[in-house]
């Protein structure tokens, strides 16, 4: 007798739990029961759990019967000829899906060789335990798990050929790599996912060595010759969108070159690129401040009198123009309709991005870094055969992170490039290091991948032999030109009088809570005060009632709105945000009285 639970709810009892569970599994494999059901007998608790609800993660496995895999050679042949498909195998009961609970009772063999009579299932491939991005990580079984996770995440940020119809698309903040390549060191997943149709990196020659400290702390040194020949070049696309909105009372926005009478008219120069229809002409080279789409909107509030005024004089300017630090070439103009039926103008800007100091790159092994120096080819180290690397990677990145796969790919890439073939780096099923070494030796190189190299500046031979080979490198979407920012003075917010936030608004860099703490911990009070001075104001305060008084600029007189003009009023210095806070207190019905006293 044991209890049976269906989706966690008590259902009843069965006499023979093992037979009961076996019959459920059997009927499921014969397609008499829903394939989504999973069942587990817990002999410790003497309870049977049946699960059929949604939200369970399930994993496909090959069934094993009497020590033999049900997936036969005949199946494989049929699969190759495309006579049967995956779903047929599931229907035939060759493959079944297990959830986390049923997996408890399964005994899964990792490879076909280790299947015994006790096994119930066989793993389809060791690779199925990974997701797509991790499957693309070559030699992952040689590297620490955390690094594998980092490496898989990095691949998602890589630039590549993201969509074949990119010319017709308006995407936000997207880049296209100019000459993407298929990696020399591949995994099975590269073929399965048809990676050659949307590659996202390039094979570069990498030397693992220092370069005068310019590649310390994960920085990379790259060869100017490679950059000049188009290495890691990309195009950055950014849309500018404007919609002709309709307002109540039949008023609408109007996309056109604004009249000079319009409220907020910029200057004639700013509208210079606009064509007659108010939209910029294609291939014009624009920079910050230039208007991309000219637009005017009706006035915000219509009072009775305004209706008799000339309509154009009260319209507002509401063009879309490039923000601080933005530039580009107009690539494409799309005139269409929004979901609300309004006229929608989308303009795509394009900008060529040549690798520069600060751009971020990564290999597929969680070894990311930014460019620290772009070196003239003449100063680059070279091998005996005269080859200069495209990229120099610091050896200090290797020991602490233990990314052995990084080194193996370098070796594999070298062989691939020399022998003109692809190297299989599929996790758990890759080509063996010993075989790779043998092949490299047969190609006439030292089997450990090192070569004698010479200093490009002095021409002297390096004492150490340098590990140099070929690797797949990815350019990541974080490029300095999108991030570089500094401010000395600039715009402030209307409400708080504090500096604006963010690069696009030419904002300040926030001195946050923790930064404040470091100032306090050092006892640097006056420096701290100076840092927070950005919104300081002089405010007249009535000494009688402690409220903020009024300064009448016209009469050059101060007076208190509650006590009148016949009281002592002092000017004090405080942050404008605090003055705002005092006003908010008043709205709460709280009387914030400032008691003034002389400091000295």
């Amino acid at each position: 007798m044991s209890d049976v639970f269906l989706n966690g709810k008590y259902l009843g009892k069965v006499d023979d739990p093992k037979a009961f569970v076996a019959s459920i599994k059997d009927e499921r494999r014969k397609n008499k029961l829903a394939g989504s059901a999973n069942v587990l007998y817990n002999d410790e608790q003497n309870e049977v759990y049946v699960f059929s609800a949604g939200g369970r993660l399930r994993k496909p496995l090959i069934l094993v019967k009497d020590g033999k895999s049900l997936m036969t050679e005949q199946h494989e042949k049929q699969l190759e000829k495309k006579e049967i498909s995956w779903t047929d195998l599931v229907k035939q009961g060759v493959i079944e899906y297990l959830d986390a609970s049923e997996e408890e009772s399964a005994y899964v063999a990792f490879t076909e060789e280790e299947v015994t009579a006790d096994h119930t299932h066989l793993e389809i491939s060791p690779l199925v335990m990974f997701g797509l991005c991790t499957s693309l990580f070559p030699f992952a079984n040689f590297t620490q798990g955390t690094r594998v996770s980092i490496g898989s995440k990095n691949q998602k940020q890589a630039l590549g050929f993201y969509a074949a119809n990119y010319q017709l698309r308006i995407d936000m903040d997207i880049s296209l790599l100019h000459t993407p390549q298929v990696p020399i060191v591949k995994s099975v997943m590269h073929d399965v996912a048809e990676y050659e149709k949307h590659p996202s990196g390039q094979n570069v020659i990498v030397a693992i060595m220092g370069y005068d400290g310019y590649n310390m702390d994960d920085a990379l040194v790259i060869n100017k010759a490679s950059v000049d020949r188009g290495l890691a070049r990309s195009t950055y696309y950014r849309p500018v969108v404007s919609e002709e909105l309709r307002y109540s009372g039949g008023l609408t926005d109007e996309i056109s070159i604004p009249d000079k009478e319009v409220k907020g008219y910029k200057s004639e120069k700013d509208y210079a690129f606009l064509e007659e229809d108010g939209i910029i002409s294609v291939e014009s080279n624009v920079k910050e401040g230039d208007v991309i789409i000219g637009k005017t909107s009706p006035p915000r509030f219509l009072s009775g009198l305004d209706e008799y005024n000339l309509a154009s004089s009260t319209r507002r300017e509401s063009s879309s123009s490039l923000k601080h630090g933005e530039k580009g070439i107009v690539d494409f103009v799309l005139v269409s309709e929004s979901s609300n039926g309004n006229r929608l103008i989308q303009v795509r800007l394009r900008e060529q991005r040549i690798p520069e100091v600060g751009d971020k790159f990564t290999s597929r092994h969680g070894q990311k870094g930014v460019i620290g120096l772009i070196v003239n080819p003449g100063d680059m180290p070279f091998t005996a055969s005269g080859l200069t690397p495209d990229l120099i990677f610091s050896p200090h990145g290797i020991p602490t992170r233990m990314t052995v796969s990084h080194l193996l790919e370098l070796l594999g890439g070298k062989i691939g490039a020399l022998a003109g073939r692809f190297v299989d780096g599929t996790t758990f099923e890759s080509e063996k290091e010993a075989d790779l070494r043998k092949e490299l030796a047969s190609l006439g190189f030292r089997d450990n991948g090192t070569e004698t190299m010479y200093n490009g500046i002095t021409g002297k031979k390096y004492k150490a032999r340098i590990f140099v080979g070929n690797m797949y490198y990815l350019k990541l979407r974080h490029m300095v030109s999108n991030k570089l920012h500094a401010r000395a003075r600039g715009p402030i917010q209307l409400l708080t009088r504090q500096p604006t936030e963010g690069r696009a608004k030419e904002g300040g860099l926030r001195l946050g809570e923790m930064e404040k703490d470091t100032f306090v911990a050092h006892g640097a009070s006056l420096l701290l005060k100076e840092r927070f001075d950005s919104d300081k104001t002089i405010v007249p305060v009535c000494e009688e009632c402690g409220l903020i008084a009024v300064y009448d600029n016209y009469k050059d007189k101060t007076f208190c709105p509650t006590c009148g003009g016949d009281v002592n009023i002092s000017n004090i210095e405080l942050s404008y945000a605090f003055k705002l806070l005092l006003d908010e207190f008043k709205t709460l019905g709280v009387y914030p009285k400032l008691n003034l006293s002389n400091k000295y």
Partner: protein
Amino acid sequence: MNIPKEYLNEFPEKIIDDLKESGKGLTDSKFKKVLEKTLEEYKKARITPGECVGLVGAESIGEPGTQMTLNTFHFAGVSEMNVTMGLPRIIEILDGRKTISTPMMEVYLKGKLSGEKVKAHALMLKETLLGVVVDEFNIDIADLKIDVLLKEDKLTERSLTSATVANVIKKAIKKATVTKEDNTVTVKLTGKDASLNELYRTKEKLKDVFVSGIKGIKEVLPVKRKEEFIIITAGSNLNEVMALDFVDTTRTTSNDLYEVHAVLGVEAARQLIIDEVMKVMENQGLNVDVRHIMLVADTMCVNGNIKGITRYGVVSEKSSALARASFETPVKHILAAALTGERDELTSVVENVMLNQPVPLGTGLPGLVTEVKK
């Protein structure tokens, strides 16, 4: 070596003892020089006025905290016992949590006892729930009753009889009749709401019925500490353990702050905070000066009760209404302050940052006044 009177009041006891020890065999004039030099060094080492000790302390504990790994520490032994260590434990202590995740005791015993004796004492401490001494629960759906089959050997091991167990069950389960026959105790539901579900729930409830030992002591582990055996327990009940006559009450401790506070008082609780935080830090191989932690412990215990470093604890007692408002739920704090007519003297950091005034610390502390000649 005698220390001249004028120096006695300058040093703390520890340094005076050290000086007495190291000054042996020195001439008076040389010793005087040593004293002078020591006083100079001692004065240099003192915290200067205006030093922001709280913040420096917070950073000195917080920065190593970022390097902490989420490790649990395992005792080597038969029954695996793990204790929350690392960052979670630090958070637990400094927040002043009422219930901690792994309460634990170190029970010292009076006199030198043999291993066998210690084992027997340990078993006396261990809490026994019904589930442990039961062989099988048989549910009878038709009669709405449960047959509880007791395990003979488990009962004798704990010097229990089936009769005492039956009594315990009778007390614990209401709305049921309890009968006993040999080693079987039968529980029959009688109440109005007797149903299959109720029966099932009763079965689960029966498993957790307390039978013997000390409540809360889930696991016991006798360990050798230096020369003697001590008992480490999972679960804590300081009050009842200290009442036992074989327990050395001067050394027995728990890691439960509130229990120690209730049984031994606030000074013991303060010391426990220091010890427990230091234990975690040392366990992680981090080096934090004990004085930073002492400051935290003092802040938490200053009014006789344990207050956590949270918005309900220490923060709620800040003197400045503006500082409290800037932390959380500003409207609540401001309205409360307005009702009582609170006056903010702007003596602390946050208020002065809000007003853009120099913080009264470090360079902001002294005021410089020059006399103007007329």
